[in-house]
């Protein structure tokens, strides 16, 4: 690849190459504060989607060690999203060292709060906001659970804000650094936010999972306890490598849901969600 960079996010190193300069330059700017990876666990490639797409309506294909055959190319202007999707794909399909949960995560006093839910549940936004309110941001996409200890490891990639979450984060975190606004992508409008400095500086520090939340945005405030069996089933669905890990995955996940209390929360806006989180955390 003509242009390339290396990035380490938590324990995972990426080497990312592209035919185009722009996506690599955008990644370098967004990940300027991250350590360079000396080991590339995964390669990501963002080539021109066809030879003529180098010049005419330039578009990038999403490729890497792991690929989806039907992954549609994205316009060059959305190259940062292509990189994000390709990096996520490598982790989701290739990572085996930890049990991967599709969840956001924040930490306080060495203990981790894990939040998992459908796209639009607000887990990214909540983690981003908590990360600027006395919590350490550990990730908005994956949390990595170590099979040997049950500890949560961070994957604090640039926070991917979508649609109305962009305005919420811009208002709530005016001093944080943002990437360019990507308009009308297949996932709606996207803007990346660089996590707070301590999230990057301390990204190798694990935390002990202490609370598991299943948030739902847009409903009246409500809290419901979630039993271990329900949490187990929800998390098998939220894990991209549970099946691949076999017995290790089963032991890690059953151990997690046995020792960590779980709650489903409904919330109408981010302020009430943050208040709810603080109350639940205090009552642990």
């Amino acid at each position, binding site marked *: 690849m003509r242009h390339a960079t290396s990035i380490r996010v938590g324990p995972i190193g990426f080497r990312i190459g592209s035919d185009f300069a722009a996506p690599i330059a955008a990644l370098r700017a967004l990940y300027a504060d991250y350590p360079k990876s000396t080991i590339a666990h995964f390669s990501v490639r963002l080539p021109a989607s066809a030879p003529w797409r180098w010049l005419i309506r330039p578009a990038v294909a999403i490729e890497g060690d792991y690929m989806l055959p039907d992954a549609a190319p994205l316009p060059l202007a959305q190259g940062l999203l292509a990189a994000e999707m390709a990096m996520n794909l490598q982790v989701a399909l290739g990572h085996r060292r930890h049990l991967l949960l599709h969840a956001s995560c924040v930490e306080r006093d060495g203990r981790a709060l894990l939040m998992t839910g459908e796209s639009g549940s607000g887990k990214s936004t909540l983690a981003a906001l908590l990360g600027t309110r006395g919590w350490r941001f550990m990730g908005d996409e994956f949390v990595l659970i170590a099979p040997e200890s049950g500890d949560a490891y961070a994957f604090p990639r640039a926070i991917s804000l979508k649609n109305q979450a962009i305005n919420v984060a811009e208002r709530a975190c005016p001093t944080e650094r943002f990437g360019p606004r990507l308009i009308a992508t297949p996932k709606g409008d996207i803007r990346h936010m660089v996590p707070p400095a301590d999230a990057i500086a301390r990204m190798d520090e694990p935390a002990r999972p202490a609370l598991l939340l299943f948030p739902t945005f847009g409903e009246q405030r409500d809290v419901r306890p979630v*039993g271990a*069996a329900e949490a*187990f*089933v929800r998390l098998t669905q939220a894990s991209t490598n549970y099946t691949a890990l076999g*017995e290790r995955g089963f*032991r890690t996940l*059953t151990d997690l849901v046995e020792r960590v209390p779980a709650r489903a929360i409904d919330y109408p806006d981010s302020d009430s969600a943050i208040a709810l989180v603080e109350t639940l955390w205090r009552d642990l």
Partner: protein
Amino acid sequence: MSATRLRAPPADAFLICELGGLFALFHRPSGMTHLLASPAPELLELLGERALTRHELLAALNARYEVTDAADDLLDARLDELIAVGLVHAV
């Protein structure tokens, strides 16, 4: 009841974890995870020890676990589910 004998894999073919009254079960030979409610784990335990007919299984279930209200049709339904997911087979 059928005289066909049924069998389940031995106990070491499974990892079982009780989760709030339900049982998460990892089936080592297939790598599949199942979530079971009682009396399915008890049926697997009994059929893992030796092959039994449905009639013998019902008697064994009553004797070991004192499941006095275990009805034939309930047992049949649970067994059919276990056979359908490949945890119990006819011998």
